[in-house]
């Protein structure tokens, strides 16, 4: 450990060790000695502090412009490790691959979403149209509807601006098999077929209807139960409700 040297040699050369004046092999031996000699270690540490200011004897050198800023940036915000510099590129490549693979599926999903959006927009427009009829309605007609033991209602809201009706049929059970509810306009020329109505208990049937293009002035409305196959001609089934506008 001492390279065959007596402790006195290390004591004598402490300052030379601190000053880095020993030959390289001597310095190596001294360093090995320090690891096992607390006395020399403490003495060397004290000498380093005592001679520490000697370095201030050098002539100062002006740092080039920006160098001190470079130091603080490099120390406080060190550059990322090399692999980290490539990480964004790798992530971007991976993302591109994933996007590429998912592109077709995304396209299909996009097409489905577009159709769903169009349908929702149509439904929304229909609701808005219905509400506009309801808001503008200046007259409301109401009649009871009897269907066996059930008693429901037929309500008509008349929009004088667009000449349309909001027709609401509520409180009736679904039509029996082979039959259907049929809404009628009562005109000066007779009964004009309106539309099939499909109430279902608590779920009222609602529809917005314009006035029939023929048949003359509309005088009232009726609801009948027709056979499912009977879709043309005058009513043949049982009348469930009947109301006149002037009544």
């Amino acid at each position, binding site marked *: 450990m001492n390279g065959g040297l007596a402790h006195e040699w290390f004591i*004598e*050369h402490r*300052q*030379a060790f601190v*000053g*880095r*004046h*020993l*030959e*390289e092999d001597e310095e190596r031996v001294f360093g090995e000695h320090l690891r096992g000699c607390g006395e020399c270690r403490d003495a060397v*540490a004290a*000498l*380093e*502090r*005592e*001679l*520490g*200011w*000697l*370095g*201030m*004897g*050098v*002539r*100062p*050198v*002006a*740092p*080039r412009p920006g*160098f*001190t800023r*470079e*130091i*603080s940036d*490099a*120390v*406080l915000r060190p550059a990322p490790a090399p692999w980290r510099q490539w990480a964004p590129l790798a992530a971007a490549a991976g993302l591109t691959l994933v996007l590429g693979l998912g592109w077709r599926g995304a396209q299909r999903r996009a097409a489905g979403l577009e159709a769903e959006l169009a349908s929702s927009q149509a439904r929304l427009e229909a609701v808005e149209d219905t509400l506009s009829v309801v808001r503008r309605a200046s007259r409301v007609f109401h009649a009871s509807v009897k269907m066996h033991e059930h008693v429901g209602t037929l309500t008509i809201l008349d929009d004088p601006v667009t000449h349309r009706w909001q027709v609401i049929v509520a409180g009736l059970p679904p039509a029996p098999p082979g039959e259907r509810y049929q809404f009628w306009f009562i005109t000066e020329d007779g009964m004009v077929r309106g539309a099939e109505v499909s109430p279902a208990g608590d779920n009222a049937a609602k529809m917005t209807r314009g006035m029939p293009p023929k048949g003359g002035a509309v005088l009232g409305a009726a609801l009948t139960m027709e056979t499912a196959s009977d879709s043309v001609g005058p009513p043949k089934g049982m009348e469930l409700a009947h109301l006149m506008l002037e009544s």
Partner: protein
Amino acid sequence: MTPSRQPRSAAGPLTLERGGSFRARLIARDERALVELIDHATPWLLGMTQSLLHDADEAEEIVLDCFRQAWDQADRIPPEESALVPWLMRVARNRAIDRLRSRRRRQLRHERAHHVGALGGDSAGASLPDESALPGWHVHDTVHAALRELPDDQRSTVELAYFGGLTHSEIAERLAVPIGTVKSRLNRAYDRLRGALAHLKEWV
């Protein structure tokens, strides 16, 4: 070689403490403390490293590494090292000497040591427009005052050894004196310098 400047009390001292020692502030991750330390110590560290290496790029690398070590390992700096500037100077000097030795350019070093201007003469780097205003200049003056008090043979030996980075044998060869003479001159010189610089321990 020996500077003619006299100590100036007007020069800024290295008393940079603000809410604790620099070491404590660095441990507390006070970035402002690091920036202040860089501003004040960099000219001196560059002076040390360039005087030894005569290479501005290598000198800058070492200075940067010194500050990085101070920041990353502040908690490992011994508490006795409350004065960070001499600690930094020692780290820089040791690194520069290590680099010199790793180059194995002893012959070149001999030649360059002949032109060492570290003590106020030639300099490998740009000089400062007003050196006396530099923080720490009064320490520089104090060191030179202490060096001036040395006998000529001791002073020239210290210059080659400490500021030139030469070993005993290299100095002996350079001055054409026995190696024992070099050792005794250096020991006596260091003994005197330690006494002359002892009061600087009170400074940061």
